[in-house]
Each structure stands twice: as C-alpha cells, then as structure tokens.
C-alpha cells in the first residue's frame, strides 16, 4: 500500500456544528476517489483542512510522509496538493488565457506561453481564450478552475463539485475532459460530487460523509447501495428501514 494522503483523527467544529468528527482516511496513489454526502455533511471542510485553509482542532494530515497540519494553503500547494473550488476561484477581470498563463508562470513552467497553449487544448478551452473569465458560462468556469489547479503539477488533485451548477447534459462531457487531463498528468484525484451517475461512472472508490463523520467507504457498487447511504445521502425512501 502506498498512501499519498492520510488523515488521522481529524476533528473540527464551528460553535455547535461538528463539521468533522474524528475522520480517518487514507488515499492510495493513482486512484480516483469520490466524496459524497448531503449538504453540510463536511466534505468541503475536509478539503479545507487538507489544503490548510482550515486548521483542524485536532488530528494529523500526512502528505508524502510529512504532517502538513499548520502549513498555509500556499505551502501545501507547493508540496504538491492542488484544488478546485465549489465556486470557481478565477481572476474575474482577466481573460482565460491570462488566467492560465499566471497559473503556469507561478508553477514555474519553462515556457509559460507554450504550457498555456497546451492547457487550453487539453481542456478544450481554446475558443474562450480571449474571453473575460468573469463573463463565462458556469461549465467553462468550472473547467478553467480545474485547469488552473492542474497547472501546478501536483501529485494530488482535489476537486470540489466539478459539475455543480452545470446542466445535466454537460456534466459527463466536463468530467470526461477533467478526468482525461488528470489521468494524463498522473495525479491522484479526490472529487466531491452530488450526482450519483457521475460518481458511479468515474470513481474507483466512494466515501460517504454524514454529519461530519463517515458512514460508508468502499467500491461504488457497495457504497451506493448501502441503506444508510441511500437514506442519508441520496435521499431515497428505504423500504425496510431499520430504526
């Protein structure tokens, strides 16, 4: 077993709300893992702790055999963890090209212009190169957000709802592009997702969050069929519900 990221006993609360109740998880290299859970279950909080935006109240996060708790988002990014956001974090007044060019330059690309061209092609963003990021349709903004995250040549890519606020018929196309690029880059992917069809199609492993804790962890087949997941995550009526 070769874990890229290991979380051990993470706890985080905001006043009375427990956003992480003793979370322990390990992620193997070159896998694609999906985090699912109802609104407020603690998925984003988990990503925020891993990337240093929030400091866990207790617990350890090991990345590359090193405890990264207490490091800043910038330091963690430099170590090789990058992410996209639930609400895309772009440079709104700049065009798509410049957004990527900044990302590639910060990442230290030898030829940032060429790297930008390549990224535009990889994410099918060429037609939008000269459009202002703030004015793009949501699907394109999501793609650009991921493209910027991948520019830092990280080992671990965290995606927070890469297909939310995108129309149903676009979701698969976007995920195809994103996963294709991730595979080509050889990164480990953890993505948060609400659409179970997407989860079933792209994830090799699924972790279900509920109320700051983990209620199921395993292959998509088993997790998506578990009663607790169907009741608390998917919201199905479960016929023979055990009280």
């Amino acid at each position, binding site marked *: 077993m070769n874990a890229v990221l290991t979380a051990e006993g993470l706890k985080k609360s905001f006043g009375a709300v427990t956003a992480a109740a003793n979370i322990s998880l390990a992620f193997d290299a070159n896998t694609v893992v999906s985090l699912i859970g109802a609104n407020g279950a603690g998925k*984003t909080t988990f990503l*925020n702790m891993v990337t240093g*935006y929030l400091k866990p109240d207790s617990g350890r996060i090991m990345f590359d055999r090193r405890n990264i708790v207490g490091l800043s988002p910038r330091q963690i990014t430099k170590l090789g963890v990058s992410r996209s*956001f*639930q*609400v895309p*974090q772009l440079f709104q007044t700049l065009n798509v090209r410049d957004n990527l060019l900044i990302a590639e330059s910060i990442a230290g690309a030898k030829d940032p212009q060429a790297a930008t061209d390549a990224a535009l092609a990889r994410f099918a963003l060429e037609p939008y190169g000269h459009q202002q990021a703030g004015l793009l349709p949501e699907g394109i903004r999501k793609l650009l957000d991921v493209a910027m995250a991948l520019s830092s040549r990280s080992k671990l890519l965290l995606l927070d709802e890469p297909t939310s606020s995108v129309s149903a018929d676009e979701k698969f196309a976007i995920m195809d592009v994103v996963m294709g690029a991730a595979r080509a880059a050889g990164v480990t992917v953890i993505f948060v997702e609400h659409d179970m069809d997407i989860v079933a199609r792209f994830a090799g492993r699924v972790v279900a969050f509920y109320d700051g804790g983990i209620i199921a962890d395993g292959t998509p087949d088993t997790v998506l069929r578990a009663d607790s997941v169907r009741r608390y995550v998917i919201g199905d009526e479960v016929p023979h519900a055990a009280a």
Partner: protein
Amino acid sequence: MSNILPVAFDGIAYGSWLFLMSAGLTLIYGVMRILNVAHGSLYALGAYAACSFASAWLNGGLPAAGSFGMLLLAAIVVGGLVGPLLERGLLQWMYGKDEVVLVLITYAVFLIMEDVIKLVWGVDSLLLPEPYALPGNFSLGGLAYPAYNLLLIGMALVTGLALVWALYRTRQGKLLLAVIHDREMSMAMGINVSRFYLATFTVGATLAALGGALTAPTVAVTPGIGVEVIVLAFAVVVIGGLGSLGGAALGALLVGLVRSATVRYWPEAELFSIYAVMAIVLIARPKGLFAAQEARKI
C-alpha cells in the same frame, strides 16, 4: 495624583465630542458600507450654521440662553436638509460600488462642499463665544473647569443612549439591525432598504452637524475646520471596528483619554499619539476592537 482628575475630565469631554462625530460615521458605514469623507463637511456646515443661527438670535436681543437651542436647531436643519439631498441626489446611485470607490465619491463631495462653504460664508473666521462663556466654570477638587464641557458630555450620553434605544428597543431599529446584519436577506424579506439608507444617512448627517454646532462656540470657525476632524473620526471608528456603535464609544473614550494625557505630559506627541493608538489597535486586531474577524467561506 492631582493631575489625574483634570486629565480624565478633559479626556472624557474630548471623547464625548469625538463620539458625536464618529457615531454617525460608524452608523452610516454599518448600514450603507460608505466610509463617508463628507462627514467632515457636514461637521463644518453645522459649525457655520450654528454661528449664523445663534448670532441672529443674539443680535435680535433675545435671551442668551436660547442660543443653545439655536445650536441644536442648526444641526437639525443642516442634517435634515443636506443629508437627504446627498443621499437621494447622489449616493443612492452609487450603492454596490467598491468601498474604496465610495470613499473617493464622498471625498469629491467633501471637496465641493469646502468651496460651497467659502462661497456662502466667506473666508473670514466667525466667532461665537457666548454659549461657551454663559454657563461659566465650576470647580472640582480646587480646580475650575468650563461648564460647557459638561453640556458636551451630556449631549454625547443622551445621543448614545438614544441611538441604543432606537436600535434595540424599537421595531424600526430591529429591522435596521437586520439590514446591517445581512442586506440581501433583508431585501429578500421585503424590508424597504432604500428607506433605511435615507434615514440612516440623515441621522448620521445630523450627528455630524451637531458635533460641528457644539464645537462652534469653542473655536474660531474657519474654512477647512472639517479637514482634520474627519481623519480623527476615521481613526476612532477604525479603532472601534467599522460599523460598531459600542466600538465607536470605546474608541472615542480611548482616544480622548490618550490625547488629554499626552497633551498634559508630552504635548509634542498630541497628534502622534492618536494615530499611534489606531495603528497599535489595528496591528493587534486587524479589523478593530469590536468587529467580527471572520474568514471567507469557500
């Protein structure tokens, strides 16, 4: 030991005056997100109007005690006329702009008003000594203090209590607190935000004018008197935390006491001390004493 009392008294009097100035400023910021540079102009207008009103009263041979009423009237007239004029005529078109741009807009208003004042009242100093001299001195612990300062302290207390009552004990006030807390939500709930903006700005303007009117008897009223006041009021408001009334009160008292102590023991450092307090507070609490230090949710 004998020095403490006069330092404290001066500090509290000065703090009261500062509070009158900064309460309106912080209120306007809290509700409208405008750090209003024109607050200094309203202060100056209040001072000038007070001179005109009270002089007219005294020259008319009316009882001198009535000149206090004229100071208040001047503040109400200035606030009630210029406040709505500015809010309806200019600011209401600017909401939603960047906070720094709003500072620039009110700075422009400030520049315009500076010249308007000169055109109306001329460039010579105006003096209005009567209301200050009238109540005379009172003595405490063997030292004499101007009784006018008691009036100042009283006005600040009354104003502060009135604001607290209006905000926390009336229906309209509670709605206003809701607007301060979350504007979008309030609008969605059907609160008429625009009316609250008008009311807030008018009240704030009146408080600024009141500060000016109450200062008029103690200084020579000259062009540019609003220039320094506005930065002082900024300092107080930033120390307390932008938008916090309690913060403004504490900030005003703090600055008042620090200033009177430095004036007494180290007069060269008077201005220095005030802004140094502000810098120190901001270093320790980047958003001021009473502001929530919240992080963005992502």
